[in-house]
């Protein structure tokens, strides 16, 4: 289905410009995208340099392509926390100081290859390229993340500072509910420092009225691996020294459950609690939400917490000491109503709020 993906990555690897080979490029990382028949993700990519790629992935100061890499899990796998992501990549036109706003699901901009808002295609010749920017158009429903890089700083191209940035907008066009975030950027492909602070204090609204979920995307020293992403991270509530959280009356209540995520997934807050705990937390409360990478133990019989190796940051290794565990995932909290109320009072429609927990 995605021969182009495999071909492009294979060619890039064969000629030595695979993801590892271009590790010093500037990049921007959109940690979450959702696509379905009623939800789409609109991303804006801002590029401030002419240090880009040609179609073969060769760095040049006169080239005009950005490298888009969409990591996704689709169909039934979209709801499987532990399914790995496939990679789909494209080199797509850009130009210095260009902004490209793209509907990854291709719902909007159906006649313009997913490119939105009357983009004139003069310097950035996206029309002439004949390429489709709606990278997830044919894999609905899907969850994923987007990684985009240019060649700024890739030898022989000089480094002109941070040259890529972005924003994302997740839009349920049936109800009009929307939320967004600022994408992370970097002058390489290492996003370990962009993990959300662990722990982060998180407020939980009443479970019976408001649905709370976490979008979790593990980070790594190599955020754009070739072909597939199977990075695994864990999120859990540990608020004192136990698996616990506070209710709205300062009572500690134990019985929380860790949840593991591979590549990217949505975790319901209710699924992070035992049923006895959930029943006693009808009004919600607050917790410290932890995130960290996990790796197989020595016998490969279990997944255990990890730290990133100081000498080779792309490789996490097991650690038994909680205080050593490195922050390991970008965590976004989403909360929305299932009815037309908040605090039991009518609100006349849908609300949909998201918070991306900042890095430490």
């Amino acid at each position: 289905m995605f021969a182009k993906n495999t071909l492009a990555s294979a060619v890039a690897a064969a000629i030595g410009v695979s993801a590892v080979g271009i590790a010093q490029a500037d990049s921007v990382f959109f940690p979450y995208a959702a696509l379905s028949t009623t939800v789409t993700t609109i991303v804006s990519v801002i590029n401030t340099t002419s240090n880009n790629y040609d179609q073969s992935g060769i760095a040049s100061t006169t080239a005009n392509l950005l490298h888009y890499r969409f990591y996704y899990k689709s169909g039934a796998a979209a709801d499987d926390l532990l399914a790995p992501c496939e990679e789909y990549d494209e080199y797509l036109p850009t130009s210095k100081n260009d902004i490209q706003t793209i509907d990854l699901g291709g719902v909007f901009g159906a006649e313009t290859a997913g490119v939105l808002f009357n983009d004139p295609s003069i310097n950035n010749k996206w029309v002439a390229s004949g390429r489709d920017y709606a990278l997830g158009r044919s894999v609905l429903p899907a969850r994923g993340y987007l990684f985009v890089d240019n060649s700024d700083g890739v030898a022989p191209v000089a480094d002109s500072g941070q040259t890529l940035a972005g924003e994302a907008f997740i839009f349920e066009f049936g109800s009009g509910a929307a939320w967004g975030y600022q994408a992370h950027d970097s002058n390489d492909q290492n996003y370990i420092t962009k993990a959300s602070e662990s722990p982060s204090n998180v407020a939980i609204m009443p479970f019976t009225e408001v649905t709370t979920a976490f979008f979790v995307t593990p980070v790594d020293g190599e955020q754009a691996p070739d072909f597939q992403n199977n990075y695994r991270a864990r999120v859990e509530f540990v608020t004192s020294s136990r698996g616990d959280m506070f209710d709205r009356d300062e009572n500690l209540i134990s019985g929380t459950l860790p949840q593991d995520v591979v590549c990217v997934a949505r975790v319901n807050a209710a699924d992070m609690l035992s049923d006895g705990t959930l029943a006693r937390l009808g009004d919600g409360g607050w917790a410290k939400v932890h995130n960290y990478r996990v790796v197989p133990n020595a016998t490969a019989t279990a997944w255990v917490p990890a730290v990133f190796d100081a000498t080779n940051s792309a490789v996490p290794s097991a650690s038994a000491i909680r205080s050593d565990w490195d922050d390991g995932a970008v965590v976004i909290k989403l909360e929305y109503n299932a009815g037309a109320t908040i605090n039991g009072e009518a609100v006349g429609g849908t609300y949909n709020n998201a918070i991306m927990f900042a890095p430490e």
Partner: protein
Amino acid sequence: MNLKRFKSLVWGCALGALLASNPLYAVGQEEKSASFKPVTSAVMEATGAWEYRLDTAGGRWLAYYDKNRLLRLLDPEGLERLLVPEGRAQAPSGLAIAASSKGAIALWRDKHPAKGLYLLDTESLAADTATIKPLEIGGDTEPLARFLADTDDSGRTHLLWYGEKSGQPTGEVHNLYYRNLNRATQELSPTELVMAGIYPVMATDAKGNLIAFSWRSSGETKQIVSRFRSAETASGSSASSFNDLVEIAEVPEVTPIFQAFHSGSRWFAVWLGQYGADRRDFRLEGVRSDDNGRTWTRFSFDDLRGFDISSLQLAANDEGHILIAVSGRDRRTNDKAKQDVYLIRSADRGDSWSKAAPLRARADAGDGREDPLALFHARNPSVAFGGKPGQVLVVWEDWREIRSGLFASLSNDYGQTWALSDVPLPRPRGINLGLRYEPNAVYASGDTFHVIAEQYTDDSLESKQLIQLDIGGEALADLADAAKARRSQEMETREDVLRKRAEEYWSAMTQADFTKAYAYLDPFFRARMPLNIYLSNMGKIKYSEAKVDSIKIKGPIAEVITTIRASVPEFKVPTTGEIVSQPEREVPVTNRWLWLDGEWVSEFVIESQDIVFTRY
């Protein structure tokens, strides 16, 4: 008006009037077999706490929080009083009741007039809330809203709570504290620091012996621990009145499922432990002691290993019969399974235990087909011994009829076999009845069992009132017969009715009569999404034709596939100016229909968020 009198068993109060005026409450067999009585006068939050105790004369003292978080107490005569002044700021929380021959003691945490743990003895209950003077018993322990109260035969009330006072010798912030009240002299014993922990767990016997348990977390060491307090111990000395702490078991994590009890002179504690890195190795386990907690024998219910237990209620007598009713689901591999209800029993004071037996009757078990009941939650079972030796009633909340109702099983041999099994208790049409995870909602007086159930005030399931259902063995047999007849009658006509309903629904959609279509949607959705908001979201898709292709019915759930022709007329996206349209095309649409209140309704799904408003 601060003082309100309510005779809760009289049909004159608000709920009584509601029920009496509702013809659905007086239909056929249901009226003959069992009776509903309103218990509470004020509406409660759906999650609102309540508690009750029987005094030595069998009178029921019941306290509850209303929707304004005001604490109310009902005496055995049905007189209801506010325990805190009406109109005050929200402050009381937590609730415990103890009862004896002299009435009841209510215990709550409050910030008015100062933060503390307040005790009210009904013997000293004033005529109105303005002059109610509860006793503050928490002192400087900074009590939190988790506490217990039990009265022994001597009239001494034992109080155990947890507080967050720092700088204690345990080195922990959260600790358990104890004191007792001599109701005859109104003398309070000194406050004692018992041990570290967040869950006060206690069992007392009639003589006044007690044993306190805690799950103690200190660094990497997490243990179940206990301390025994003899009834012979004098209070008031500077030394602790408790024996030394006994370390019982290393348990890395526990859920709030943690209880203590006794059968004769044998003491027990049971808890739900969490083991393994993913904490999904749930183990319902416990300990017993025959030497007042000096030594303990550990046991576990291995056939429930991996089951996340959401509620646990038990009945134990001094003859050694113990019944433990739980709801739970296997969460070892996923979070999707529905909860089910089980009973564990012992006839030899816990020397041995039965397997955890499912309380719901399984159809065609063992033939490889999916258990139809696995599609529906059942939870929060309560259990009680009856007036006759061996008689036991178990009642639970069950969603197999899409709405929540109560089901019951009756045994005459302590739960070994069932004389009546899996019987639906009467539920008026359109009403949802449930049980809370606590307290144990069933008790017996004479030959009658009483069930205190929660009745949701509407299909939003946001608020409730308490009702009482009285049932005897004969009534339950009548109910079983009536339910059987009703089910077989309904099965005969359902498919024809469904096809007609589905065609009517799609006819309304093709005519853009969304007001009419709304009436075919499930009532849980309609309760949360008013018609005007629904209408404001409709109309972007134009339906031109619809043909019901196939119907597949499984119990009260049906999958209906309809081929529709639809288009999206051109419209401009307000924020972007983008023109959006879709040409007409033919697509098959699968809808789930539910048999509810004697008719089929379409289950509303917000597909993008996988949200349904039903709760089964």
